[in-house]
């Protein structure tokens, strides 16, 4: 039995690997957050020279790439790797060693991305690296090569994790855990894994083509030799838009677990949540061109994608109604986890509606490449995904560590993040409508631009401090937090039947599964779900 550091480096236990994923994501969350702070400092007043234009380009490229590929992807995979085996009553993932490989590839990809700073300059063409800016002629230093190679490793890690999830969920469910009784987080992880398997290879293909261009002088995206920069846009967004759903679906899964427990009601319309996930996954491959409306692509062509982009709001809206209807008539407990879950509903809905604006082609033409886009995507990415992750952290930290996160610090964390987030990004809608372009390191002193940007920077400081409270809470509660016990929230899914933290093989005995809420059945033998609600 290895101990200490070598036990962590050599582990194939899904719980330890998951914690490695989460700690890695936490580290890069701090790094990406500091990059955001640097940008907001630069933008706090007109005509500042705090960052050079070149540095600013590198910082916003690395901020986006970091938050997407080194924070949200790893932390979501981490939650999945931790929870899926426990929720289906299994001892581990189907392929434990492959699981470890996926993590180490992810860490290697992060290392490659950041070593670029030492190797002549970080990538600087934005997180979607449009050609020909990303080509050798316009980005001659090696940053783009590190970007492409790093993303290839990260993508390989994600594909490996997705393969493992599908096989785990297909073959390792405890007896009685039928597909219609799967916890929604597991259901959504299954659909999401298929989405990863179908979408990430499009990125890989584009990256291989970009590397061929840069390192072997091929001409895929090089217009001077007949290549096509628009092909890069197509390939990137064929990956990129499903990727948006790959990032948000697991957040939906967490919300679908947390809201029912703290509303003391089973989820309203389980079948609708599951089916709308399938619809989102399917439609997500038919909307990528809405990132390219400003490219002259033909009226009929873009109309089809505009329609699909409106259509995908329907299954997403269905979920919002499911969660809202679960709240109605519930006896709600406002723990910090639940506060974040409810805030998620509001912020994500707002971000969804501002996103719907882009499906209207003329509005897109007006707003594309302005701060309205930045505001929209952060309402989805932070107000949506990050809020759900905060909720998930407060909800599952006790299971992972055996200790509760401090609720007083949790309130500070919550209110600072909510206030800071909305101050930062709400005003950016207005700046975008006024025409302020994104990705430019400074701006002239036009009426209101300076004061709105100052408000945004002020909000970012509050948001950053709120995030620091969260990090402090993690470490303080790990050392001094109250003991959680196996089931601190009186919850219903199988992970709460294991010890906190669970032993290496997870369960002494897996409770029988005869409905969607096996622990409810166990605690209420007088009125089990399988008798009163049907087995599902």
């Amino acid at each position, binding site marked *: 039995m290895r101990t200490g550091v070598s036990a962590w480096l050599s582990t194939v236990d899904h719980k330890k690997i998951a914690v490695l994923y989460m700690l890695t994501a936490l580290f890069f969350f701090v790094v990406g957050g500091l990059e955001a702070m640097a940008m907001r400092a630069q933008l706090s007043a007109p005509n500042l020279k705090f960052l050079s234009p070149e540095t600013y380009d590198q910082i916003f490229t690395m901020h986006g790439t970091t938050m997407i590929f080194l924070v949200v992807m790893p932390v979501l995979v981490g939650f999945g790797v931790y929870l899926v085996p426990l929720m289906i009553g299994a001892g581990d993932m*189907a*392929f434990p060693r*492959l699981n470890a490989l996926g993590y180490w590839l992810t860490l290697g990809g992060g290392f490659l991305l950041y070593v670029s700073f030492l190797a002549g300059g970080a990538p600087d063409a934005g997180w979607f690296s449009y050609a020909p800016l990303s080509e050798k002629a316009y980005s001659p230093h090696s940053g783009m090569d590190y970007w492409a190679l790093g993303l290839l490793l990260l993508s390989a890690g994600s*594909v490996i994790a*997705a*393969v*493992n999830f*599908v*096989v785990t969920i*297909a*073959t390792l469910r405890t007896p009685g855990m039928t597909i219609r009784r799967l916890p929604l987080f597991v259901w959504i992880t299954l659909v999401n*894994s*298929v989405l990863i*398997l*179908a*979408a*990430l*290879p*499009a990125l*890989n*293909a*584009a990256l*291989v*083509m970009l590397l*061929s261009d840069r390192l*072997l*002088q*091929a*001409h*895929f995206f090089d217009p001077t*030799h*007949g*290549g*096509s920069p628009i*092909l890069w846009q197509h*390939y990137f967004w*064929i990956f990129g838009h499903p990727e948006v759903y790959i990032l948000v679906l697991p957040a939906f899964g967490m919300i679908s677990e947390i809201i029912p427990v703290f509303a003391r009601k089973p989820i309203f319309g389980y079948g609708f949540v599951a089916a709308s996930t399938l619809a989102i996954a399917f439609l997500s491959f038919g909307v990528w061109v809405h990132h390219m409306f400003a490219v002259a692509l033909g009226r009929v062509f873009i109309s089809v994608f505009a329609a699909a982009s409106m259509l995908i709001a329907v299954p997403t809206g269905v979920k919002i109604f499911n969660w809202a209807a679960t709240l109605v008539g519930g006896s709600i407990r406002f723990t910090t986890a639940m506060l974040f879950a409810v805030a998620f509903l509001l912020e994500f809905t707002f971000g969804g509606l501002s996103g719907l604006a882009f499906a209207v082609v003329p509005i897109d033409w007006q707003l594309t490449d302005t701060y309205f886009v930045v505001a929209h995507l952060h309402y989805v990415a932070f107000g949506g995904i990050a809020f759900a992750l905060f909720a998930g952290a407060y909800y599952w930290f006790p299971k992972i560590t055996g200790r509760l996160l401090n609720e007083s610090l949790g309130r500070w964390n919550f209110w600072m993040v909510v206030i800071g987030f909305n101050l930062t990004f709400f005003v950016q809608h207005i700046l975008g409508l006024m025409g302020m372009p994104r990705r430019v390191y400074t701006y002239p002193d036009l009426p209101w631009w300076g004061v709105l940007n100052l408000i945004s920077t002020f909000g970012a400081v509050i948001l950053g401090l709120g995030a620091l409270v969260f990090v402090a809470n993690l470490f303080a509660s790990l050392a001094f937090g109250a003991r959680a016990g196996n089931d601190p929230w009186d919850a219903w899914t199988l992970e709460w039947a294991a010890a906190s933290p669970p032993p290496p093989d997870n369960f002494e005995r897996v409770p029988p599964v005869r409905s969607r809420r096996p622990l409810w059945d166990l605690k209420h033998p007088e009125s089990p779900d399988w008798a009163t609600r049907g087995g599902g």
Partner: protein
Amino acid sequence: MRQRARLGMAMFLLSEAVFFFMLIAAFVYFRAASLAAAAANLNLGVTAVYTACLMASSFTMWRASATGLRAWLGGTILLGAVFLFGQGSEYLRLFHQKITISQSLFGTTFFTLTGLHGLHVLVGIALLAILFGRRALAVDVVALYWYFVDIVWLAIFAIVYLWTFR
């Protein structure tokens, strides 16, 4: 355990299918610009022979996983190697005509697509060699991979060669 491994491989191959679909789509996207170069420089007859070898290797692979005999594994490795030899000699011939990945759009799409496929054949041969040495139980899992690589080649052969010379 066998079922798990097969399902895992099938899921991996699903992602590989998308990967090759995108590369083939890129070839088709630039087809109009590279058609003349393709018709002038590719050799349909010779490549058809090597293609037949690769197809035959799917048969020997199937026998290897059905019977567990090493001779069939050896035959599969040999046929795969013959295919790679054929691809290598075609590359050399093109290089002598100064056609490279950087020379034209045809070179860019042709070498990227067939090169990545050849790399997959090479990985398949390495996997088969491991099976040949260790008589592991995973023959049917590697067989899935081998069939997939063969099917991808059929698609490439149809689009890059047959369509050019129709």
